């Protein structure tokens, strides 16, 4: 029996109209191990997981569990076979409670009626046993994104499946929640579960995984039975097909005058006045724990949320409060953190998503959109940022997560007179190679004199890219460090709430 892998993919192929997502891919996962799955954005990782979860039916090949060939026709089949998949796009029911989400599809009953008391008791007990701090009665829509992600993870774990797949589970988790997750994963490994772990964070792969497989362009390019002795550079090289020695590749540059000045700004969710400046050519990193209020302040600055008081200036010109269009007119733009809800317009094409704002600058006769220019713009960004799409007219929702992110970023890069760019978690869910490309784009913009604000929850990224780091905690700025003086200890200390223990974050 020991020879039969718990889970085996055999010659899997899957084609979507215009896209070959997977071609003749196979690998094995053993019981009691965590198998890393790596690859660029759009390499086909999530597609593979959806096949495992019964959501897609492969065109070719098959999935085998304990040597037995399985033919999943639906998600329910996969669940029955002991498979649990945590999807990259969270799948929860916002109006229902944590308990009901956790027990979705299998609430306990008594005399045909839902036994709520038993369900609550059971949920509470299991949550305690797992060491996860969630109120089972709270509605999902009232939780933070990180908490929702935890609910998803716990939901899969509570199924007691023998195979567990986690598709980028940490992309919106805080450090503390990540620690909890890792502990859970290790426990499950000890219990003999087979697990697949997908992440773009190399350090997580090394920390958790026993073996790994690398995909590129829908094909398998490497298999590692063990990660012992494998270096980070090897993995990256196999993944992106080129050497990336220093992923941040920081380039110093000269800075100009103050471009963005924020003075005493308050919002409805931000009672404490906030002030900061960003110079032309400067990249300022905002660091804080999840919920520190970084997104909120930037949304107020941009005008997406109501500005109660304070002043925002671009090159000395005041920007009207709560007027996104005025901000854009001043060259101040924001790339939001919640890509699916606030970034992409799913049913519209890649080209539409890229051109939606910048098109106003090249109208024919001041009235009609110029399709030729728009096509050129879209194609140039698809090439420059290597957005993996069959063509610019593909609906953007059909792109992989990372490629959607690149398209949203392109939307603002296409602005003619860009002065201030605020990016909120720009590399969330983005592969190593593409991260590097995005950093280069930020540097280029800065070199052209754009003031860049980058919100990030990854400390190494903040330290590696920023000219200056600002920390926030509980809705107020708690520290400022220039590049020379910023280091993990002092930045983290400033970002943590008073009295919290200073646990060091992982290295990137």
């Amino acid at each position, binding site marked *: 029996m020991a020879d039969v892998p718990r889970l085996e993919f055999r010659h899997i192929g899957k084609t979507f109209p215009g896209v070959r997502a997977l071609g003749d891919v196979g690998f094995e996962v053993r019981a009691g191990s965590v198998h890393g799955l790596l690859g660029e954005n759009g390499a086909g990782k999530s597609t593979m997981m959806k096949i495992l*979860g019964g*959501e897609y039916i492969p065109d070719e090949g098959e999935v085998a569990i304990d040597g037995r060939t399985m033919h999943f026709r*639906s*998600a*329910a089949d996969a*669940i*029955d076979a002991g498979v649990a*998949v945590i*999807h990259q796009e969270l*799948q*929860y*029911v*916002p*109006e*229902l*409670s944590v308990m*009901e*989400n956790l027990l*979705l*599809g*299998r*609430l306990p*009953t008594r005399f*045909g*009626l*839902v036994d*709520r008391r038993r369900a609550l008791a059971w949920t509470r007990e299991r949550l305690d046993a797992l060491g996860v701090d969630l*109120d089972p*009665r*709270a*509605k999902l829509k*009232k939780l933070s994104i990180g908490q929702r992600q935890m609910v998803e993870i716990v*939901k899969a774990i509570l199924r007691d499946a023998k195979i567990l797949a986690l598709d980028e589970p940490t992309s919106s988790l805080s450090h503390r929640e990540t620690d909890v997750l890792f502990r859970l994963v290790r426990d499950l490994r000890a219990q003999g579960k087979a697990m697949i772990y997908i992440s773009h964070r190399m350090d997580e792969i090394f920390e958790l995984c026993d073996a790994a497989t690398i995909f590129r362009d829908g094909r398998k390019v490497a298999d590692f039975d063990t990660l012992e002795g494998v270096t980070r550079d090897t993995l990256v090289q196999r993944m992106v097909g080129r050497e990336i020695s220093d992923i941040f590749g920081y380039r110093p540059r000269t800075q100009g005058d103050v471009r963005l000045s924020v003075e005493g700004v308050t919002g*409805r969710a931000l009672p404490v006045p906030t002030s900061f400046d960003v110079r032309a050519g400067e990249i300022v990193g905002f660091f804080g724990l999840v919920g520190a209020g970084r997104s909120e302040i930037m949304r107020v600055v941009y005008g997406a949320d109501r500005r109660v008081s304070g002043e925002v200036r671009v090159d000395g010109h005041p920007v009207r409060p709560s007027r996104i269009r005025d901000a854009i007119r001043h060259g101040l733009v924001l790339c939001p953190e919640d890509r699916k809800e606030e970034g992409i317009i799913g049913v519209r094409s890649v080209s539409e998503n890229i051109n939606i704002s910048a098109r106003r600058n090249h109208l024919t006769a001041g009235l009609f959109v110029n399709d030729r220019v728009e096509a050129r713009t879209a194609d140039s960004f698809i090439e420059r940022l290597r957005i993996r799409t069959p063509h610019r007219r593909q609906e953007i929702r059909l792109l992989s997560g990372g490629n959607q992110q690149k398209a949203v970023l392109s939307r603002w890069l296409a602005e003619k007179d860009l002065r201030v760019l605020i990016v909120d978690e720009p590399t969330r869910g983005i592969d190593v190679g593409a991260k590097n490309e995005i950093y280069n784009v930020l540097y280029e913009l800065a070199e052209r004199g754009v003031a860049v604000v980058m919100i990030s929850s990854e400390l190494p990224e903040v330290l590696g890219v920023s000219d200056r780091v600002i920390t926030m905690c509980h809705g107020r700025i708690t520290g400022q460090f220039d590049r020379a003086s910023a280091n993990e200890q002092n930045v983290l200390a400033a970002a943590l709430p008073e009295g919290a223990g200073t646990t060091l974050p992982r290295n990137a």
Partner: protein
Amino acid sequence: MTESNAAAIAATRETPRDRRRALLWQLVDDYSLIGIFIVLFAVLSMTVRYFFSWDNVVGLALSVSQIGMVACTMMFCLASRDFDLSVGSTVAFAGVFCAIVSNATGSVVIGIAAAIVAGALVGFVNGVVIAKLKINALITTLATMEIVRGLAFIASHGQAVGVSSEAFFTLGSSQFLGLPVPVWVTLACFVVFGVLLNKTIYGRNTLAIGGNPDAARLAGVAVDRVRIAIFLIQGLIAALAGVILASRMTSGQPNAGEGFELNVISACVLGGVSLMGGRATISGVLVGVLIMGTVQNAMSLMNIDAFYQYLVRGAILLIAVLVDQLKNRRQSR
């Protein structure tokens, strides 16, 4: 809202004052619509003559009995993010069909059973087309609305179909503990579907499907089966309403129930059922139905001109939803 959100809120770490305030608001939110209705009812009782009399209250209950029954199932339909325009036609068809079968077989029971089976069948077809063939619910039920209405006309040759057996009329006209039977049936529907919604897996899955169909599917919920069941039950209850209506009118009428579907949907939405799915309460639907009926009843008692009744109906609809909206607005911030 089965479990009070208030409890959940109270569990978060806030000052006792905050907590009390949050709790209070939650109560206001949960029961604001009921409050609105009570105020409306009280004001009308005091100002409109004959409004607050047993006769009138029974008449009011009777006038909303058909809508009430079907609103219970429409609640499920909307809660699962679907839509059903075919109920009015089903009401008419069931009445006609029941009368025809009763006459042909000489048995009222067979007639009623046949009509209810036919209604369930209509619902089943709706459900299969919508869930399996994945055709938009609005269009599907618009089509079946036409088709079923056509069948009602064809079966009856466009004429009212009388029932020869007197037994048939007792269903609609007899009383039990001072209330007419149709009102009892409606009350039973509210109890049954209230329990179904809040206390059974079927109800919880319905809300889950409406809240996020993909999540429900990925969690192994038999989404298609639940959706088909929802439509099937809706057809069945619509047929029941049709049979009771026919019994009350002592004949099956092919042009009954025109515009019925929009009234039912309005009542549900008034009662806080979200057209985006995932949100529904049985108490809300009850109040929605009652508000609709009460307004119509009061307008007639006040002898408001038929033309002005359009204005009042429209305005009431707007105001009620607006009030409900204001509370949501407060909540979301």
